[in-house]
């Protein structure tokens, strides 16, 4: 049993079920990110953990105590909102201590806690200001301060960085991660940004249409996505997923891939069990960074396949060069070294790291387990 247990939880609005039987257990000190497109149910789930939304069925418990029907203020949780939800009529100091005041903490203790938190977040010089006088980053810090001061069992973050500009977002991301590492707090964090999910989390729950599609460490999610949705949602640019076919040749399974000219090329799969799919259609998933020029290929990879294809467009982005091509009749992207010499319109021999390739069942879109 973890610190926070979500067991078989569903949520319905009238006849419409928006969350379907969610099971997640979060251990103390974990940083769980709920990620998914808008409307996937991630914010609803967070609100249910906070007690701001009722639970239709199932159970949410914190430290073994059931939270169903318990008022939000009695769950020993704290939440950072997307809009920060700072009380505009109160100073920063009053904002931070309001929760303690409501819980009847005596004033000297409140002051101590406020000063401790303000110092940690470097907002001690802002305590007498009103939220309206603060910058976006400062508001963000105050919102975190308001959460930290309560010393809760679980921190809940609802898309806390989405209102910041790109530069600040990266800075605050690092800050949140530092805070988590130094305090060892338990965090549940909602975002639609897969990069935030990858960088911050110790575990990720990818959600779509009210289902948890996959729950796992960032590496598991990235390398072995359990279905096409997870594969294409996580990673930027998205994983190339295109129709292919398994052909067994010399006793080993190969993926038959058509390039620009419609001619099939065979790329050897390391997964022997795919031989069972001989002659059947699959969806092949290849991440952009595993398609490179031969010199740029991963030296440690066991299975590098060669693929001759026509280069569509090249997009030098400074750190990388993106190359578009056609694979299996769909547009695909390769992410190559910045100094690679490729020209639009050329025929080029690409190296594909098949260790990282993933095969999906085209009917269910689930990954074919090795």
């Amino acid at each position, binding site marked *: 049993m973890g610190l926070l247990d979500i067991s078989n939880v569903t949520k319905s609005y009238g006849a419409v079920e928006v969350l379907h039987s969610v099971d997640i257990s979060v251990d103390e000190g974990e940083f769980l990110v709920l990620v998914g497109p808008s409307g996937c149910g991630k914010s609803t789930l967070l609100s249910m953990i906070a007690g701001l939304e009722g*639970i239709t069925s*199932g159970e949410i418990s914190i430290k073994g105590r*059931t939270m*169903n*029907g318990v008022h939000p203020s009695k769950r020993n949780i704290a939440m950072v909102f997307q809009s920060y939800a700072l009380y505009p009529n109160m100073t920063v100091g009053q904002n931070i201590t309001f929760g303690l005041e409501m819980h009847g903490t005596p004033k000297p203790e409140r002051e101590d806690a406020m000063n401790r938190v303000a110092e940690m977040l470097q907002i001690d010089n802002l305590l007498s200001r009103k939220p309206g006088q603060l910058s976006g980053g400062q508001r963000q810090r105050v919102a975190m301060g308001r959460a930290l001061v309560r010393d809760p069992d679980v921190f809940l973050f609802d898309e806390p960085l989405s209102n910041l500009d790109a530069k600040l977002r990266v800075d605050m991301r690092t800050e949140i991660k530092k805070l988590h590492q130094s305090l060892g707090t338990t965090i549940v964090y909602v975002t639609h940004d897969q990069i935030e999910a990858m960088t911050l989390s110790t575990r990720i729950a990818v959600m779509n249409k009210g289902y948890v599609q996959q729950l796992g460490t960032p590496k598991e999610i990235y390398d072995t996505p359990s279905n096409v949705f997870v594969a294409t949602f996580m990673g930027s640019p998205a994983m190339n997923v295109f129709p292919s076919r398994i052909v067994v040749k010399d006793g080993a399974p190969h993926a038959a891939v058509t390039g620009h000219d419609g001619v099939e090329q065979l790329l050897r799969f390391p997964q022997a069990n795919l031989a069972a799919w001989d002659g059947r259609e699959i969806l092949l998933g290849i991440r952009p960074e595993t398609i490179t020029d031969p010199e740029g290929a991963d030296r440690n990879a066991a299975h590098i396949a060669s693929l001759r294809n026509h280069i569509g467009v090249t997009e030098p982005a400074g750190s990388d060069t993106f190359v578009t091509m056609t694979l299996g009749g769909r547009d695909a992207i390769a992410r190559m070294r910045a100094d690679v010499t490729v020209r639009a319109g050329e025929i080029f021999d690409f190296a594909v790291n098949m260790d990282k390739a993933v095969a999906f069942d085209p009917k269910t879109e689930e990954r074919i387990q090795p």
Partner: protein
Amino acid sequence: MARPVQSDLRTRLQEWIPKIVLAPSVASMLIFVYGFIVFTGYLSFTNSRILPSFDLVGWHNYWRLFQLPTWTIAVQNLAIFASLYIAICIAIGLTLAIFLDQKIRGEGMLRPIFLYPMALSFIVTGTAWKWLLDPGIGIEHTLHLWGWESFHFGWIKSSSMAIYTVVIAAVWQSSGFVMAMFLAGLRGIDNEILKAAQMDGASNWNLYRRIIIPQLRPAFLSAFVILAHLAVKSYDLVIALTGGGPGRATELPATFMYSYTFTRNEMGVGAASAVIMLMTIAAIMIPYLYAELKEPK
């Protein structure tokens, strides 16, 4: 695993408090507004005279209502009054707003002058205009004293013209408000659009006719709805200005309802006339409110 437990008392209470707080307002609305509408609607089908009676007489009151010459006059008057009142208020309001929007010096002085009549009671407005329009002492008399002997302005004493004096006083009271609505609309128009139109070579006239006034559509709609409902409800002004006279010349549905219900002891007919007033306003307001409530979602 622990079974889901009952909510604790505080949580359950918190769920009920909002509804308990809203309850008195909802109850009073249901009784005093909708309940009363039903009650008056029911009375309009009864033979109530000085006191409410519950004996149904079908459509008799409505039939009788439309036989009554006084009601016909009231409805005709309302048609004249409402259409002129709305049209003139919008014309004056729009013109004043456009003129005030030309970076006028003293706008801060003029705007409150145009608008202050809205703060007055219709009874005060009526009292003031009653004497101003009185040929014996008002404008006509003054102009005679100033040497314009042939000037004649006795509408308030003429049964064919008196309804227009109600229009004058009502326009005086409300046109500044319409001006404020249009001015807010004008100030909300993006200046860049105007600059773009000028680049396209639009003259001031075309700028207003083709670009600006079409963008004031919401203000036109709001002004129309507000003025129309004020027109149907007009009561105080007529009472103070003309008392419905001379004769029945300025009778409106609102004054008709009052006199038939409370002084002529024909409550059934009065109720029927109130129902027709309500229907008229509902026909204007409900589509408008529906659209207003619908839009932001």
